[in-house]
């Protein structure tokens, strides 16, 4: 057996000083129309770039009316540099930090309009401008999917929060509607915060949302459509006797928010959850109602976990363990497990656990107490927060939304005029191969955006090398790739054990990896984002596969927050290593093993943009070669725009 690892004549390192990859671009079987599409997109992009370059530089947005919340919105951007010690936006108002100001603000990169314009996504939901955060009240009604979202109509940083509103027939092509709710009552004067919708059996819709009162107390309010025969649900009414729930004794009035969708108990009444915190434990409080105007606090909690801190955006829903169908929120019974999820304020991460719900005692118990909520699995291991599911009764799917914040600075966001994106909605199912996690997968409607595709079969990527994939434009892609390691069995013994099994930079070479894709990389690899598998051996000899995204070299801009994200992923005996990536300008959604582990990344290249952005395969292993087969689609824009609401 060979002891020395094979490598090419030009060993590949991921350092900027070594610009050229070892191999020429891979050829492929390519349909003729790819050339036409590439030519067309080059022409389009050239004219787009020329258009942008001819515009006068943008000035950062300043708020007109006195912001009742965030002091940042009233300041000119030039004074940012004086403000090294200010709080992250939101914290002084009693919600979790929505951004991370840093001293590096004044080190902000010299962004051009072209660079900023490139960052806008083509097929992910985002408003035309300004700040967005948590998705709210998603639902399907009379032929339309509705999305509401936390939105600041005045600035690109958090503040003055309203409910934005958009509709779509297919979860992909969204049309903006007028704001659904604004902070115009005492019970939500500080902000119309996060909430959920419940569709009642008689056809009515109720929304419960957190209002930040004029005295900064967090209360739960009721709202409903003004006109149920309007399929667009444009107008909303706030229940005149709001709030319907106020913080109970023993609960901090600034730690009581984000009511869930209701589910029906065995006694025919409804239950909802509101997240909070007691003595450092995250908790889910239960409220019971029969009419959504009078609520009764239940004596017990659905669940609590020590040391996890404040639970924001609690979500609680059933999954079927024996079918791939979604379940309506009230379903209980055999073949059903319940997912409990919380957004941890302290860590800014979404955690979940699968367990059993007892509808009689209204308690939930995790299947694995060692991996309880906040201790085990994350919904998404990347830049991701405030996720929320809903049951799509049109197609019988459980669908997951998640908010993707920026990782550049407030200063950058104000300069470019917008912040935040939503993920492509994902279908959630129970993984009955592992029995211990959920699977998330982009809704199949995203495939309607696919244009031409390029296939690569069995490309050999030798140890320590990268292969440029010749696909034309590489900024709007749907990539499916599977990897096989050659001769891995014999080399297991060579793997150095690692004390801590976690994602580290892709430059750390081991015998079996990392290997994967280099996304949004320029030809000289001065900027690159590796998305990869890393097989680690623990000190007890067992192998764990990690799925990682390394943003540390994704951009030359110094002020961008760049780290390595990722988590473990189970790769079963009969499985190859598979990844699916949705690349859409400054957002990448990466799915391993059919959605067992997901990482969302925000990337702000200064060089690897437009036609300079390329896609590579890479294998940084020292001991094995890898073969890869891929199918890569160019993705069309979703043309998200205002709803054509004109009247004659």
């Amino acid at each position, binding site marked *: 057996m060979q002891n020395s690892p094979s490598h090419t004549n030009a060993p590949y390192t991921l350092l900027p000083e070594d610009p050229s990859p070892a191999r020429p671009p891979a050829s492929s079987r390519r349909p003729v129309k790819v050339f036409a599409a590439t030519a067309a997109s080059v022409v389009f992009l050239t004219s787009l770039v020329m258009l942008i370059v001819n515009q006068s530089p943008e000035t950062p947005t300043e708020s007109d009316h006195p912001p009742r919340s965030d002091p940042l919105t009233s300041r000119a951007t030039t004074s940012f540099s004086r403000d090294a010690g200010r709080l992250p936006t939101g914290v002084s108002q009693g919600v979790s930090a929505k951004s991370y100001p840093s001293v590096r603000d004044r080190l902000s990169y010299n962004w051009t309009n072209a660079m900023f314009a490139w960052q806008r996504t083509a097929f992910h939901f985002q408003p035309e401008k300004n700040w967005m955060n948590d998705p709210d009240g998603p639902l399907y009604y009379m032929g339309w999917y509705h999305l509401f979202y936390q939105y600041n109509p005045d600035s690109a940083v958090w503040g003055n929060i309203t409910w934005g509103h958009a509709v779509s*027939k297919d979860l992909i092509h969204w049309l903006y509607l007028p704001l659904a709710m604004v902070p115009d009552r005492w019970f939500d004067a500080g902000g119309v915060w996060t909430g959920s919708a419940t569709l009642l059996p008689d056809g009515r819709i109720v929304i419960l949302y957190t209002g930040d009162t004029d005295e900064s107390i967090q209360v739960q309010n009721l709202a409903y459509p003004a006109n149920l025969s309007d*399929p667009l649900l444009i107008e909303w009414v706030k229940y005149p006797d709001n709030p319907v729930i106020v913080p109970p004794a023993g609960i901090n009035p600034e730690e009581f928010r984000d009511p869930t969708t209701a589910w029906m108990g065995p006694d025919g009444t409804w239950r909802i959850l509101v997240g909070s915190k007691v003595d450092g434990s995250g908790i889910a409080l239960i409220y019971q109602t029969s009419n959504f105007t009078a609520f009764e606090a239940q004596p017990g909690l659905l669940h609590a976990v020590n040391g996890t801190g404040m639970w924001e955006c609690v979500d609680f829903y059933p999954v079927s363990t024996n079918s791939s169908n979604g379940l309506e929120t009230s379903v209980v019974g055999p073949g059903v497990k319940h997912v409990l999820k919380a957004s941890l304020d302290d860590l800014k991460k979404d955690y979940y656990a699968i367990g059993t719900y007892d509808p009689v005692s209204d308690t939930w118990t995790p299947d694995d107490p060692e991996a309880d909520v906040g201790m085990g699995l994350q919904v998404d291991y990347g830049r991701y927060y405030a996720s929320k599911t809903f049951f799509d009764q*049109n197609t019988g799917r459980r669908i997951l939304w998640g908010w993707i914040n920026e990782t550049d600075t407030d200063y950058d966001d104000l300069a470019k005029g917008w912040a935040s994106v939503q993920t492509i909605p994902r279908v959630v199912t129970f993984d009955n191969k592992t029995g211990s996690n959920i699977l998330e997968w982009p809704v199949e409607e995203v495939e309607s955006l696919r244009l031409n595709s390029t296939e690569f079969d069995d490309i050999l990527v030798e140890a320590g090398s990268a292969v440029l994939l010749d696909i034309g434009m590489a900024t709007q892609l749907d990539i499916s790739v599977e990897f096989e390691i050659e001769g891995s069995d014999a080399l297991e013994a060579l793997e150095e054990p690692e004390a801590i099994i976690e994602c580290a930079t892709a430059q750390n070479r081991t015998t079996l990896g990392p290997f994967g894709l280099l996304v949004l990389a320029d030809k000289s690899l001065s900027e690159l984002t590796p998305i990869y598998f890393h097989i680690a051996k623990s000190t007890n000899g067992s192998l764990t596969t990690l799925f990682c995204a390394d943003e540390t070299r994704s951009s030359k801009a110094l002020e961008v927050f760049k780290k390595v994200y990722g988590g473990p992923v189970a790769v079963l005996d009969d499985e190859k290593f598979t990844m699916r990536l949705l690349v859409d300008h400054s957002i990448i959604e990466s799915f391993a093993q059919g959605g067992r582990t997901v990482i969302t990344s925000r990337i702000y290249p200064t060089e690897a943009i437009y036609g300079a952005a390329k896609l590579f395969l890479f294998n940084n292993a020292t001991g094995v070669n890898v073969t890869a087969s891929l199918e890569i689609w160019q993705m069309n824009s979703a043309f998200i725009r205002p*709803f*054509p609401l004109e*009247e*004659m």
Partner: protein
Amino acid sequence: MKALVCFLLLLLLLATLPSPTRSFEFPAREMADLIDQTCRLTPFYDLCISSLRSDPESGAADVRGLARIMAGSVLATASRTLDRIQELLGQAPDPETERPLAYCAELYIPVVKYTLPQAIEALGKGQLGFAVYGLSDAGKEAEECEKNLSGQGGSPVTEGNELVRNLVDVAVAIIEILQRSF
């Protein structure tokens, strides 16, 4: 002489009588002109004419009314196509045939239940953009259904899918006439 006078009187009488064909021709030509003129501006003239003429109210309708009648035809055709799909599903076909048919039914159900009725209502309220969006969506779903079925060695509902798409194109073209005039 008498015969001649009679003959001349007869001629005179005939000359003064209003010509039945001519007087009915006059208003009828005007109505046909509107339907005719309208259909000339659509991509499927014959389909447009036959669709509109088969509705008794089309004779007295203005362009907005013609748009509503055409949208109604789209709905009727989509409903019939959905019925046909469900009939075929009811015949318990093999799984290979069943899957694409079930997919088609899933596409058509919201179209028939929500999208087209909403588009027709929007037309009545003058919300032309909304109506166009809904009709176009219906056409896309029919196309998607056809794409999925065609791989199965011919589609039993091809006629329905094609008809829906063509009627949608006609309806949208008629609405565009309305949009241009404002």
